[in-house]
């Protein structure tokens, strides 16, 4: 099995299955007969929501659009429609729900932006498999933390006072927590930078922002895993 790497097939027009007219790929309804259109495989959640490709999205605005589009696409309202429309409604609703889920959370929103801008997924360097490389920027912290965790585990085995070990863990956690906050801040800054560069910056500058975002995101994911490890050691005490 391979990870999901579907090529985004560049379809520029859709054909309306109800009247046969052509429609721009980003339209939801046929300009000719106003029936719901089957889904094209363009894979861009921002356009689907009618939003610019920006990382700052007002939550209530996103929710409002989600409700509005749900009311347009939901299978409930196509019960009496033709099979083609019912299928289109199912596909479009599913896609809407997937898109909403991705855009609602900043981390997955950035992931999606990276994907549609053609950058490799941060997931593919899978921290889930546990085989992720240590990001160079974190080498020092990771080295120290691992040493400390090893020692704490050893002392636990030899029956040391759990309260003292917990205190050591809290101390070991502090620099990692700081790193995490630092990364959250950087991600916010880079996101704002992307938004401002969207209109008046060169492609190279925009690309640089995305690369930086991706790096920071990878590091942040790594940090989250470190924190999860600390939590599990703490539970073991």
């Amino acid at each position, binding site marked *: *099995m*391979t990870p999901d790497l579907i090529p985004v097939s560049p379809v520029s027009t859709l054909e309306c299955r109800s009247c046969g007219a052509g429609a721009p790929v980003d339209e939801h309804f046929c300009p000719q007969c106003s029936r719901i259109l089957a889904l094209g495989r363009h894979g861009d959640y921002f356009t689907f929501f009618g939003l610019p490709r920006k990382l700052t999205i007002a939550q209530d605005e996103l929710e409002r659009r989600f*409700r509005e589009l749900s009311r347009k696409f939901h*299978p*409930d309202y196509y019960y009496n429609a033709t099979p083609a429309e019912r299928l289109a409604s*199912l*596909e479009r609703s*599913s896609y809407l729900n*997937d898109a909403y889920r991705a855009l609602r959370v900043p981390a997955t929103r950035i992931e999606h932006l990276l994907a549609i801008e053609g950058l490799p997924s941060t997931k593919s360097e899978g921290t889930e498999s546990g085989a992720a490389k240590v990001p160079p920027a974190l080498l020092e912290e990771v080295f120290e933390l691992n040493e400390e965790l090893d020692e704490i585990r050893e002392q636990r085995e030899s029956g040391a006072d759990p309260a003292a070990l917990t205190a050591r863990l809290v101390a070991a956690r502090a620099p990692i927590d700081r790193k995490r906050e630092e990364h959250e801040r950087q991600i916010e800054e880079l996101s704002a930078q992307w938004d401002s560069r969207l209109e008046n910056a060169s492609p190279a500058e925009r690309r640089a922002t995305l690369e930086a975002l991706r790096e920071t995101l990878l590091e942040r994911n790594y940090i989250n895993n470190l924190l999860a490890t600390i939590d599990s050691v703490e539970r073991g005490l």
Partner: protein
Amino acid sequence: MGKVVGIDLGTTNSLVAYVRDGEPRVIRDSAGDALVPSVVSVGDEGTIFVGREAQRRLLTAPSRTVYSVKRFMGRGIDDVQDEAALLPFTVGGDPGGVVRIGLGEREFSPPEISAFVLRELKQRAEEHFREQGEFDFEVDRAVITVPAYFNDAQRTATRDAGRLAGLEVLRIISEPTAASLAYGLDKKNRGTIAVYDLGGGTFDISILKVEDGVFQALATSGDTHLGGDDIDRLLVELVLDDVGATHASPRRPELVQTIRKAVIQAKWDLSDHQQAEIRVEPLADLPNGYRRAITRAEFEALIRPLVDRTLGPVRQALSDAGLEPGEIDEVVLVGGATRTPLVRRLVGELFGKTPHSDLNPDEVVALGAAVQADILVSGRREMLLLDVTPLSLGIETIGGVVSKIIMRNSTIPASGREMYTTSVDNQTAVDIHVAQGERELVADCRSLARFKLRGIPPMPAGLPRVEVRFQIDANGILSVGARELRTGVEQAIEVKPSYGLTDQEVERMLIESFEHAQADFDARLLIEARNEAETVINATEKSLRRPDFAGVTGGELSADELTQIERALADLKRVMAGSEREVIHEKTHALNHATRHLAEVMMNRSVREALAGRNVKDV
């Protein structure tokens, strides 16, 4: 086109409702009762009894009578072995397959049993529409509710049951969201709602957000094996332990059922009183009967662990929705078991507000189902329900690990895709195993289906790129499609549901149910005759029991007439238990006839009372 209804297919009771003039209403029988007990019994001649009639047979023919079948929907024998041991009917089936329930000489799958209940509801609704003078009274489509936490197999089993009952199932919706729709009709139109649904056999908690008429489920959690039945079982165990000390008799079904009936009454009494008595009348296994006082405090101490088990899912759902208990605006209670004061108190404490109970907790789900049915067929758009899938969907990968494709609490419809390739040159098929659940290993999740992806064009290993699409529809039911991307060839998929019926099995059952239609029809006529008899008996007894009976009749009734009434009454009661419809009819008529004068006397008396103290001008 026939009529459309909403059905709450419950563990203990089921109901049917519909919308007229924009208002949902439940359909009641002539006695004003909306609940049809979800009980099915098979008579000696193979006739099928459903509802009240079947419930009566729990005592007289327990091994031929099945209740709480919802607990077995979409499950395998290996899941239910423990509780099956306590049940008076036989629960069997092949390991890894669907549960089979043996009743007398016949064997049924859970969807077949549920179909009998659904057919009863369908008939009840049709009768109602006919009485309303509707020309087009046939009920052919329905929205049926299921616990939010039902998995794909359980939802599919419910849909199969609808099909077997001759209903097109327009939609399967979850019970808590249905309840929120019923409440949403006249509530303020924004806020967060927690629906706490403790039914006969299942517990659900759903957190919803309502805005602009869109009811969006944010998270749901629950336990498909926790409900009022478990409370009853604890009480039954208590009594069995007590009597077991003196009686070494095996657990006879009659004994268990008689005790069950007694403890349920005590449970109900304890909702209104601080103390109650469990009272079992003497029977063969228990010659001296049994009596035991129980206080509400004792009862609450006994059931507290059960109620506490609901709090885990509540916290899980809140955390999934990203909300604190205090951020919930409205708390709605659903299900008969929420009448228990302890449940109300604990839920109130948890959320820090008094739960709503303006609508009857037994009826609110059916009302919501009717609203959803109306939305589907009428095109009204002021409300929209967006439900979520309760469990993550994944596929088995190397080492028996589940790779999740659609996460739990995803709004449905939802879709996901996964790429497959081959591991051997010229391999043309791949095995796929779909599971539902939150655990990492497939062995700990619910197996939904196994299928073979066939027709992959022969290519060197690793070259084919087969995209498998998983689609969860608005019912929460999965379908699967696949395509080889290099060639564009659609793949044939044979899905073998792990704990469901195949289409062929459903077809066969449909045919069987037609074959049994005559027997079922006869059974129905018998039930109607009994119901009619019961109505007359009740009315007569009510009159005779009045403490002021003599005063009311004012001596207008002769001793002879009274004797005749009593004789006719005894006659009818005697034949009621039998299955000869004509005899029951005859004796009902006889009692009717004997009481005619009594009825006149009573009637005149109430007219006189109503007019007393008024003069002719007022009338």
